[in-house]
C-alpha cells in the first residue's frame, strides 16, 4: 500500500455555503491529506478575507492558501481606499481574477460567503476554471458529490439561522461518512449584520448514520454492562 507521503497536501474536503433569512452559514470538514496520510485532522478551511467576508477552501491546500492570502491583501487595500467594508461581490470577483488568470496552474475550488449592507447575505461559488456563480447555496470539494441529492431534497428558501446551520452540519457530517478525503470536525461560520460567529462540532458529537455505531471506550465496557449472557447474539 503506497502512502505516498510526498504527495502535495490536498484538502479533499467538503465545503458548503448556505444563505438564510438574514445572512450566510459557511461549513467545512477539517481533514487535510498527503496521499493516504491525514496530515492535519483539525484544519480550519474557512478563512477570513475581511471582517464580513469569509472563504471556504478546497483542493490544493497551498493553492487555496496563497489565493486567499493575495485576496486578503488586495481587499485590505481596497477597504482603506473605499472607506467602508468591502462587498461580498468584490471579494468574489478578486478571487475570480486570480482563479481565472492562473487557471493552468491552480487547482482549488472556493466558496465565498459574507454579508454586506447593500445585498445582505450572499454566496458565490468559484469552481476550477474561474467561473463565478452566485447561488442561494453552494457545495464543493470531493465530499460534495455525495450531497447533490441531499440538497436537492432538503434545501428550502428563507430558512432561519438555526435551520441553516443544522442543515450545514448535517450535510458535512453525511459527506464525511462517505468521502475518505473528508473527516475530523465540522466547523461553521455564521455571518450576518450583527457580526461573525464560529462554531465547532467534534466528530464524536455528530449524529450517527447508516452502519455507524455508538463510540465506546472499550469492549470491556460492553461486556461488563451486558449481563449474564454477554456473548449471545
Amino acid at each position, binding site marked *: 500500500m503506497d502512502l505516498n507521503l510526498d504527495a502535495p497536501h490536498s484538502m479533499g474536503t467538503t465545503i458548503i455555503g448556505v444563505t438564510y433569512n438574514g445572512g450566510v452559514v459557511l461549513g467545512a470538514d477539517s481533514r487535510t491529506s498527503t496521499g493516504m496520510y491525514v496530515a492535519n485532522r483539525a484544519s480550519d478551511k474557512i478563512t477570513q478575507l475581511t471582517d464580513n467576508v469569509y472563504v471556504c477552501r478546497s483542493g490544493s491546500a497551498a493553492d487555496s492558501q*496563497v489565493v486567499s492570502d*493575495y485576496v486578503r491583501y488586495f481587499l485590505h487595500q481596497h477597504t482603506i481606499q473605499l472607506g467602508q467594508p468591502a462587498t461580498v461581490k468584490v471579494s468574489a470577483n478578486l478571487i*475570480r*481574477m*486570480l*482563479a*481565472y*488568470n*492562473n*487557471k*493552468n*496552474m491552480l487547482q482549488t475550488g472556493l466558496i465565498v460567503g459574507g454579508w454586506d449592507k447593500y445585498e445582505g447575505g450572499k454566496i458565490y*461559488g468559484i*469552481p*476550477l*476554471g*474561474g*467561473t*463565478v*456563480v452566485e*447561488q442561494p447555496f453552494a457545495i464543493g470539494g470531493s465530499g460534495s*458529490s455525495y450531497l*447533490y441529492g441531499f440538497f436537492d431534497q432538503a434545501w428550502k428558501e428563507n430558512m432561519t439561522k438555526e435551520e441553516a446551520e443544522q442543515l450545514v452540519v448535517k450535510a458535512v457530517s453525511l459527506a464525511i461518512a462517505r468521502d475518505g478525503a473528508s473527516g475530523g470536525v465540522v466547523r461553521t461560520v455564521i455571518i450576518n449584520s450583527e457580526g461573525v460567529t464560529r462554531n465547532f462540532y467534534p466528530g464524536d458529537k455528530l449524529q450517527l448514520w447508516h452502519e455507524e455505531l455508538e463510540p465506546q471506550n472499550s469492549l470491556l465496557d460492553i461486556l461488563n454492562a451486558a449481563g449474564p449472557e454477554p456473548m449471545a447474539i
Partner: protein
Amino acid sequence: MTFTIPIDNGDALKNAEADSQRTLYPYVTGTSIVAIKYKDGVLMASDMGGSYGSTLRYKNIERVKAIGKHSLLGASGEISDFQEILRYLDELVLNDNMWDDGNSLGPKEVHNYLTRVMYNRRNKFNPLWNTLVLGGVKNGESYLGMVSMIGVSFEDNHVATGFGNHLARPILRDEWRADLSFEDGVKLLEKCMRVLLYRDRSAINKLQIAKITEEGVTVSQPYSLKTFWEFQAFHNPTAGAQGSW
C-alpha cells in the same frame, strides 16, 4: 483587470512545465445553442445548465446575453471563458458609447471583433474554449453568425453548436423558412431543444428563448418542456429478447 501570479519557470521550448500559458481543457461547460433568423429578427435558445464533467452541477446559468442595443451572444463551452468574453464586450460597448456620436455597434461588428479575438487566441495555442453564436438586428437587417474556439467564423440563416450541430441542424435544414412568425419560430426551436433533451446527456430541462428585433432584446423566463414517453415500444422493449436493451 488581470493579475497573474508571478512565476519564472524558464524556457517554454525546453521546459515542459513552463508551457503553463495554454488552456488544455474546459471545466464548467454549457451545451448546445440553437438560433434562427425569423420574420422580425433572430431567436436564440439555450438551456441553463453548467456541467462539470459528467455532473450536472449548475442549473441556473444564463448562456445568452444581450450585447449593446443590437446583439445577442450565446455561448457553449467553458463558462469562465464566456464570462471573460462578456467583460471584453463590456469594454468594447463602453468605448463605443464614449464616442457619443449617435452610432452604436451592430451585430456584424461584434461578430467580427469576436472572430479576431478567438482566432488570435487560437494562434497562441491558448484558446477561449467556446463556440459563440452572435445574432442581432440593425437598421432592419437581421444578422446571425457563429465563431468557434479555433476561429472558424461564418453567417447563416440558422446555426447550432455542440450536439445541436448533429441533432438540430438537420431539423432546421428541413423546416426553416425565411418568413417564420414568432410562434412558428419558437415551436421550431422547441422541437430542436426537445430532441437535444432526449439525446444529449449534458442537456437539462430548463431553458430560455431570447428574441432580438429592431425594438430590442427580450430573454424569456426559464421554463421546462414536456417530454413524451408513451410509445408502445417503450413499455416492454425486452419482452421478446430478455437481457437485451
